[in-house]
């Protein structure tokens, strides 16, 4: 009991040092030692006020050592790479090997469509866990695909992954059973089962730095294909024909055999009857055939299976998402985004997720109308930000005003992300929502 009290005090202390807006009386009533807080504040003040000055003449020495032009010329690059006297064979052999590997890589992965991958580090504090896995939309919610390494000396489990730009939902699975979201993700989103998933929004221009400084090869696990290895579907004797018919129907609709086999084997293992499965999947097959985005609906089904949802819950959740996608498409057509939704599917996804989250359709219509003339990327980023801030509890009126501000100012993806972070931070600090907006654009 005492230990817990001390942990709470510690948490409150660091919360205050992070700049949280908590009344002094409230902190004292929590039992926080005022002397301790003062000691920490004074020590950190010393550090914050401390200055280190560079030795005299530093700037001129730097300027003298600069190359003529900012960019490395090819000659410079080769020169810096090549040893001056001995060991000339090292770069020569390395070069030949690298060439060989590049050629082999080109041959092996010629069909890989996407090349841009963004590095992300995800971690979880779980000192007593025996195993932590990462599950999410990037791996079709399949367990055992991505295991975190850890725990390190501080009790953290971590995984470094590279993902293509996009919107992801994920969670951590502890010891193969307990599923917890990442509290430090970009946002939390209800999963429909009374829990939450973490959101990860990766923009195309997320990582502009030269990666040479950032990572070493092999440090990151790459998840480019999004399709885990499928499992063969062997329908049991009971209802064999019905399951087989459903499998054939899916293949005829154009869904990849591996995907549909995977899905059906999971639905069968979740004790869903073939009739129920057909009722649920038929509208999806029709949408798939019509070329509408259905991937996220299939993903939701996979998530339901991982979280062991009952067949009726699974069906209700999948139908809800399907409905959200249908309404999103209709709304985009009504507001004049027919062309954009075909050329930029992320806009449909963002609108559908916003509708699924329970945001008022009239509100979204206003935002879509305000976004007329803006690029699809911009409007998508604003709708995504709106969803995150809606979950963060921002008042609808202020949320609408901030989203409209972003559109009016023509903010791009990363700039919108910065606004989202700042608003989230202010909400956490307990700032009045109107003040948040007023201070946002100063």
């Amino acid at each position, binding site marked *: 009991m005492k230990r817990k009290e001390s942990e709470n005090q510690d948490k409150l202390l*660091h919360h205050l*040092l992070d700049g949280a807006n908590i009344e002094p009386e409230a902190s004292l009533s929590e039992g926080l030692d005022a002397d301790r807080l003062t*000691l*920490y504040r004074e*020590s*950190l003040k*010393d*550090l*914050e006020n*401390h*200055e*280190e*000055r*560079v*030795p005299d003449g*530093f*700037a001129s*020495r*730097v*300027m003298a*050592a*600069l*190359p*003529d*032009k*900012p*960019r*490395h010329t090819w000659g410079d690059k080769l020169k810096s790479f090549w040893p001056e006297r001995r060991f000339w064979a090292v770069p020569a052999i390395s070069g030949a090997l690298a060439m060989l590997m590049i050629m082999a890589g080109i041959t092996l992965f010629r069909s890989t469509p996407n090349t841009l991958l963004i590095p992300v*580090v*995800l*971690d*979880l*504090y779980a000192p007593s866990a025996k195993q932590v896995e990462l599950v999410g939309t990037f791996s079709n919610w399949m367990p055992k695909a991505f295991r975190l390494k850890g725990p390190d000396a*501080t009790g*953290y489990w*971590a995984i*470094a992954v590279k993902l293509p730009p996009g919107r992801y939902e994920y969670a951590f699975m502890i010891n193969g059973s307990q599923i917890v979201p*990442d*509290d*430090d993700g970009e946002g939390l989103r209800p999963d429909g089962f009374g829990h939450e998933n973490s959101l990860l929004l990766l923009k195309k*221009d997320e990582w*502009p*730095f*030269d990666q040479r*400084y*950032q*990572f070493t090869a092999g440090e990151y696990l790459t998840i480019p294909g999004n399709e885990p290895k499928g499992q063969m579907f062997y329908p049991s004797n009971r209802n064999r024909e019905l399951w087989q018919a459903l499998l054939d129907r899916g293949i005829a609709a154009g869904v990849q055999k591996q995907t549909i086999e995977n899905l059906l084997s999971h639905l069968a293992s979740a004790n869903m009857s073939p009739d129920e499965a057909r009722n649920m999947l038929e509208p999806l097959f029709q949408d798939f055939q019509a070329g509408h985005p259905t991937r996220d609906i299939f993903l939701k089904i996979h998530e339901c299976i991982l979280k062991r949802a009952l067949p009726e819950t699974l069906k209700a959740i999948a139908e809800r998402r399907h409905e959200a996608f249908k309404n999103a498409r209709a709304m985009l057509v009504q507001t004049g985004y027919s062309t954009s939704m075909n050329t930029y599917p992320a806009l449909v996804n963002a609108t559908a997720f916003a509708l699924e989250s329970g945001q008022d359709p009239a509100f979204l219509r206003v935002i879509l109308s305000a976004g007329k003339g803006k690029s699809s990327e911009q409007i998508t980023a604003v709708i995504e930000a709106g969803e995150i801030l809606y979950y963060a509890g921002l008042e609808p009126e202020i949320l609408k005003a901030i989203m409209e501000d972003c559109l009016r100012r023509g903010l*791009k993806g*990363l*700039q919108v992300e910065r606004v989202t*972070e700042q608003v989230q*931070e202010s909400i956490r600090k307990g700032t009045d929502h109107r003040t948040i907006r007023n201070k946002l654009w100063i």
Partner: protein
Amino acid sequence: MHPTDTVLIEKCVNGERDAFALIVERYQHRIYFMSLTRMRDRYEAEDLAQETFIQAYRKLETYDPQRSFKNWLFTICANLGKNRLRSRARRREVHNPNPQNSPAQPRGPEHCRIDLMRALHNIPEKLRVPLFLKHVEGFSYKEISSILKIGTSAAKMRVKRGRDQLVENLSEQKQPRLVNQGNSGNEAKRI
């Protein structure tokens, strides 16, 4: 009115090399402090700070003006520092199997400077740098996680532990001095 970083960088990219001098002037002390925090040696820190500016200049064309230049510069410094510490560790393995870090010797005579830098340098490197980035440079946890390539929760935990250690180190340094003063002045009191 001072030109913004973006304006200066544009000038540099367009061939106005002298514009970079203003950037160096603007960030030299901060990058040096960051280097010193990482390396704990004034000569190595100066070297690292210099290399940071040179690399930044070479890579200016890859800098995205939508991003904060400060973050970009500190990321370069953090990565170069990491590489240096790695190579220093390798060199030590070969030449000196029992390394003793020599924290930077402060040049000023003030006690507070001595205490603070000694206390800071006695914190493990993994906690020291996030603490510096948070409390000296005012970066957010997300920015720290991006600069150091660690998760946000790890950044928070490291800053928290860094604070605890800083306060502990400062208290330890103050304690013996006060006791000594007390002995000489017949007012021996514990704090």
